[in-house]
């Protein structure tokens, strides 16, 4: 079986809002408004058809053994070199074998399907087994023409072979005609285009069906054997019409992506094919058609292997990774269609030395460095002598590819002095996972989004265009993954965790250590009820585990229940690490008894460890934190204390005592940046254990609590004085809430029991209850309660809904603006609050009816919430239109009257 064995796609991150073209050039070409919807993809300044081809190929080769590739075809009409094998540059950038066949397929919009067909025929012939076919285009267009609106930039890549075929190739049919709807002379930058009607009626509508029907006849199949019909077509209506003519139902027609990318030239047929493959299932028949001076039709059948491909960005991922711009000037400059002042600095010589490039082609184009056989150090560039100062061995390096290695930002800047097409020039030191680092340019990012530690991936880019010598020079850049949020780290922090030998404390200590904190692991080593003492084992094991992860930790075996023990624990931190930043009061014991069996010793022992213990450690730790102006303290409470639990009067009292401790400590710590919070870990009781599903029980482990505790211990936590329940993935805040209350009696009338009884509902009510952060605020509030019987504030401030808008319309009708107007508007509002309304304006009057009216001048389609936003001025009409939120049918220009006829914002 032969066919497609893998696929990949690349759409540049930038998308130009088509309305931006109209907004800049509508004065010159008003007709542009008719095509100014949606977005087109647009290359960054450092991208061209070659860089996009490399990106799509890399996507295609994920999970594939590229040493098996024995040919590489590059299909495009916009390659950087007329005479320098572009596919050869691509193969070098991808670091493919050198004993392979490579070729450029060009000179027709059909080159993509022709390249693919050729590869399939070659593999079929048996002379080669695996061929990479990549199609890419970045076509230049003159400003303010329809084609600038319709075209996009992009690339697609397919691997053809006879192993692990995901779509079997079953046959092809081609026709060739010198049909010229447009052409680009060898000396010209832009297409010369005949009228659209010609392309539509004599081109698409006749030639595509001829190829398709030819293939059907040849393979003896019909449209019933096709589940996905793939063919690019600039015109939406024509695309549908051809599909219909060929007998394809609408769902078989693969979308042309006109609204999201525009047509990406030679790449487009293959890009749509990738889209079809992504959504296909085994057994689907795919008919692929390329058009341009004739047509290629190819038929594939999707196999079971389609589900086995490694994860990749593909078309879906590439489409989703986008940044929309409405900066049309940028589009022009990036495509060298605008020639602003670049300054004398830009005149620095940019000649590329061919001999040096040849010697270092793998290094420069392939991003291949070295890895030392003796010490394992990965390095870039590869050098004769190893860069590791402890090694320095000669001639020990093997080739090591960096292009697919993950890396992170080590340092960076945005440079406004450097000459750049898109200032500031952003660059920085990048550290590769597994070793190697490099100072390199960044791209596809904005300075404000970049952070130290942010992951980057490598992208092959055009570094410099030497206009004097007509040479494009390429190298790799780092693309920051700006959707990343920094990990919370504890580098440089010193933490004390009491009771850290096991359970929750152990989980906290390990995670703090893993994230860079220096940890004092305290554990008294006693039994669950607090008996026994001083066993080193549990604390030592946790210390060893932290050290094994490369962290720093020391053990402490003192008892929190005595003031001396607390002092010693804090001293351990100060002696070993010089300060205390974090204290987690976690140590605890249990002695459960009913109240009558609760002997004083059981009561005292539990209070001594939980409540006194927290005091004993916190006091000296607080002093150390105050001296540094930084601290994070965690108290551990429990649902037993917050809500009550049978047999735990001692434990419940101690636990709620800690809440009181926190409430005041948070006030005393505030000015020293010491934050105090309380965690209530959720534990399964015997009762809940029986009722809980097993998968939930599995999640009742300390790791599910550590996350919130670490967050509360981090610099990022700005809260203080709060209590949080946490366990099994559930998190909530618990608080002491106070109802609004009521003031009874006056200077001469002391409130009587009867008054209490008669106002019980008000006194007892928690409706509108709130927490207080300190005593004074609470008392102030109590003594000035709301006046009895005061009306409740209206809910929702003047909230208009869709129906309300139409109800209000006659009252905001501007009759003066309607003089001489005769228009009707049909509003079709979708969503739960939506509906249809028909508005007629004639001779200075207006009438509004629900439902649909006959022959509206203009039709407005919108979602309910967007519509309300638009009417209330929260959403700009132009933006709504250009982003697709507002759909206007019929006479588009008349829609602009609506704002003048109805004045909602006055």
């Amino acid at each position, binding site marked *: 079986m032969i066919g497609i064995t893998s696929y990949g796609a690349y759409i540049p991150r930038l998308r130009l809002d088509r309305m931006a073209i109209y907004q800049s050039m509508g004065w010159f070409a008003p007709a542009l408004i008719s095509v100014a919807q949606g977005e087109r993809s647009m290359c960054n300044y450092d991208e061209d058809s070659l860089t996009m081809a490399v990106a799509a190929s890399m996507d295609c080769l994920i999970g594939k053994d590229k040493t098996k590739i024995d040919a590489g075809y590059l299909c495009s009409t916009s390659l950087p070199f007329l005479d320098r094998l572009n596919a050869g540059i691509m193969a070098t950038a991808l670091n493919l074998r050198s004993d392979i066949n490579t070729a450029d397929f060009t000179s027709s919009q059909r080159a993509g399907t022709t390249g693919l067909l050729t590869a399939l025929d070659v593999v079929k012939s048996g002379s080669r087994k695996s061929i990479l076919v990549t199609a890419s285009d970045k076509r230049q267009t003159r400003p303010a023409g329809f084609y600038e609106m319709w075209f996009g930039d992009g690339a697609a890549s397919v691997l053809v072979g006879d192993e692990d075929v995901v779509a079997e190739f079953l046959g092809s049919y081609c026709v060739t005609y010198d049909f010229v709807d447009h052409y680009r002379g060898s000396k010209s930058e832009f297409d010369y285009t005949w009228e659209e009607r010609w392309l539509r009626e004599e081109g698409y509508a006749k030639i595509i069906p001829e190829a398709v029907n030819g293939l059907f006849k040849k393979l003896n199949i019909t449209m019933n054997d096709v589940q996905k019909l793939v063919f690019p077509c600039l015109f939406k209506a024509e695309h549908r019409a051809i599909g219909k003519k060929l007998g394809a139902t609408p769902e078989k027609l693969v979308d042309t992506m006109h609204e999201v990318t525009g047509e990406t030239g030679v790449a487009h047929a293959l890009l749509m094919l990738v889209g079809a493959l992504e959504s296909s299932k085994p057994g689907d028949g795919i008919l692929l058609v390329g058009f341009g001076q004739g047509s290629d039709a190819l038929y594939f059948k999707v196999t079971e292997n389609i589900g086995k491909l490694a994860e990749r960005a593909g078309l879906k991922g590439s489409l989703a990774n986008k940044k929309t711009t409405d900066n049309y000037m940028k589009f022009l400059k990036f495509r060298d269609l605008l020639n602003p002042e670049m*300054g*004398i*600095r830009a005149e*620095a*010589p*940019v*000649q*590329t*030395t061919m*001999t*040096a*490039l040849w010697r*270092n082609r793998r*290094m*420069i184009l392939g991003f291949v460095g070295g890895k030392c056989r003796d010490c394992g*150090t990965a*390095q*870039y*560039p590869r*050098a004769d002598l190893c*860069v*590791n*100062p402890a090694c320095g061995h000669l001639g020990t390096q093997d080739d090591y590819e960096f292009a697919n290695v993950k890396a992170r930002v*080590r*340092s*960076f*800047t*945005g*440079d*406004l*002095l*450097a*000459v*750049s097409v898109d200032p*500031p*020039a952003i*660059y*920085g*030191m990048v*550290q590769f996972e597994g*070793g*190697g*680092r*490099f*100072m*390199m*340019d960044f791209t596809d990012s904005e*300075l404000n989004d970049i952070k*130290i*530690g942010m992951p980057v991936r490598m992208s092959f880019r055009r*570094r410099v265009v030497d206009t004097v010598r007509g040479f494009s*020079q390429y*190298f790799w850049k780092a693309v920051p993954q700006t959707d990343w949020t920094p990990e919370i780290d504890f*580098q*440089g922090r010193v933490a004390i965790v009491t009771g850290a030998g096991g359970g929750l404390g152990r989980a906290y200590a390990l995670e703090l250590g893993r994230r860079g904190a220096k940890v004092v692991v305290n554990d008294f080593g006693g039994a669950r009820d607090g008996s026994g003492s001083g066993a080193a084992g549990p604390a030592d094991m946790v210390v060893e585990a932290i050290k094994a992860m490369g962290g720093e930790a020391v053990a402490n075996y003192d008892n929190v229940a005595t003031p001396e023990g607390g002092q010693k624990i804090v001293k351990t931190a100060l002696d070993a690490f010089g300060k205390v930043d974090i204290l987690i009061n976690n140590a605890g014991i249990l002695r459960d008894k009913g109240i009558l069996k609760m002997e004083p010793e059981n009561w005292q022992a539990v209070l001594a460890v939980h409540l006194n213990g927290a005091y004993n450690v916190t006091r000296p730790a607080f002093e150390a934190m105050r001296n540094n102006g930084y601290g994070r303290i965690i108290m551990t409470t429990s649902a037993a204390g917050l809500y009550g639990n049978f047999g735990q009067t001692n434990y419940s009292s101690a636990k709620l005592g800690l809440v009181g401790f926190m409430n005041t400590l948070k006030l005393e710590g505030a000015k020293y940046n010491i934050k105090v919070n309380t965690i209530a870990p959720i534990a399964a009781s015997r009762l809940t254990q029986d009722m809980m599903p097993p998968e939930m029980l599995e999640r009742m482990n300390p790791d599910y609590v550590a996350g919130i505790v670490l967050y509360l211990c981090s*610099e990022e936590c700005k809260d203080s004085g709060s209590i949080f329940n946490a366990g099994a993935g559930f998190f909530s805040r618990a608080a002491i809430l106070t109802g609004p209350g009521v003031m009874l009696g006056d200077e001469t009338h002391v409130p009587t029991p009867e008054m209490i009884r008669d106002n019980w509902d008000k006194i007892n009510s928690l409706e509108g209850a709130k927490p207080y952060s300190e005593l004074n605020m609470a008392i102030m509030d109590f003594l000035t309660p709301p006046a009895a019987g005061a009306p409740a504030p209206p809910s929702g401030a003047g909230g208009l809904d869709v129906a309300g808008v139409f109800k209000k319309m006659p009252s905001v009708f501007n009759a003066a603006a309607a003089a001489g107007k005769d228009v009707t508007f049909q509003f079709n509002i979708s969503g739960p609050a939506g509906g249809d309304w028909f508005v007629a304006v004639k001779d200075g009057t207006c009438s509004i009816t629900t439902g649909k009216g006959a022959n509206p001048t203009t039709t407005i389609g919108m979602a309910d919430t967007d519509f309300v936003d638009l009417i209330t001025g929260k959403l700009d009409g132009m933006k709504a239109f250009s982003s697709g939120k507002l759909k206007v049918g019929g006479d588009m220009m008349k829609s602009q009257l609506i704002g003048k006829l109805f004045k909602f914002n006055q």
Partner: protein
Amino acid sequence: MASGIRDKVAIIGMGCSRFGERWDIGAEGLMVEAFQEAIADAGIEKKDIQAAWYGVCMDEINVGKGAPSMGVALRLPNIPISRMENYCATGTEAFRGAVYGVASGAYDICLALGVEKLKDTGYGGLPAWGSTAGTLMWQFFPNATAPGLFAQLASAYVAKYKIQNDDIKQAIAHVSVKSHANGALNPKAHLRKAVTVDQVLAAPIIAWPLGLFDCCGVSDGSACAIVTTPEIAQKLGRKKKDLVTVKAVQLAVSNGYEGGFNEWDGANFVTTDKCAAATYKEAGITNPREEISMFECHDCFSITELVTYEDLHLSERGQAWKDALNGMYDRDGKIPAQIDGGLKCFGHPIGASGLRMIYEMYLQLQGRADKRQLENPRYGLTHNLGGFPHQNVCAISIIGKYGK
């Protein structure tokens, strides 16, 4: 066993041109200006100079290659002249050549002169090198400028020591304000206006987070030293107690470790740290924080100066920003830095800078620094850093009173 050069060489004459945008004068005129002052100061004749070292970096836009441009400009009597170029350490390299010429016993009296004419490019900042920066390096080096490469010290420093961007901006603003205050007192400085912290913070960004006032000026200038042995200096009539001698001159050059190995955190200069240790050893200094009276470090950018405080072992690691804010390096602080105004106010004519720094230390040690004069300085240190934080040349020298 090498014994170093402590007190083996005395400086008997120095000169320094006025620095600035010298539209009126070329490299030749700048050389003459510095040389005439130095030879008058030395009280010798041109024929007494036996060999010369000539520092100039950007010969392409300046004097061209080779040494004849200096021989011709100063009409030197066919003596050996070696042209030095080693990035921003060029001036100190010329000085080192002349010092070694004397210390080796090869010559009695040597001349070191550095010059740079930068303001012939037609634009601000250092000249862009483009593909003249090596046939290979050009093909992969980022589209970077000096401010952008040095600015990264700030992002790395902030990340390493977990301080706020605002803290570092305040600290480096203080660094610049301090240098401007010093430069305002120096008639030879290019920029002679005091600035405020608010002005510095409000300045436009050049390379984030460095603003305009975080960057040194670009100017033309020349400086020059005449050196001999302490014995000859005394024969020439110098009093022993007034002699200014060389205590140490050291260099450290990167080997690719910072930019290519996995350890360096980007928040300091590996070379400066090592070079400082070697220099203190050669000079016999064991406690630099107490022994160094004043210094001129390579403040091409305020952040460079800040991290250099630590690499010179004057501030503790992670503390330089606090020390700067606390005024430790102000004119009235514990260890005044950039007492002449620094690169900040002199600009950085590359070949001249190292010698210009030594010139100020020389004046201070002789009590000739006018309004800038410090009380009783003992050792003066100068420091140059050429290249980029991740790959560079560091040069440090220390001069002081003879035998002290």
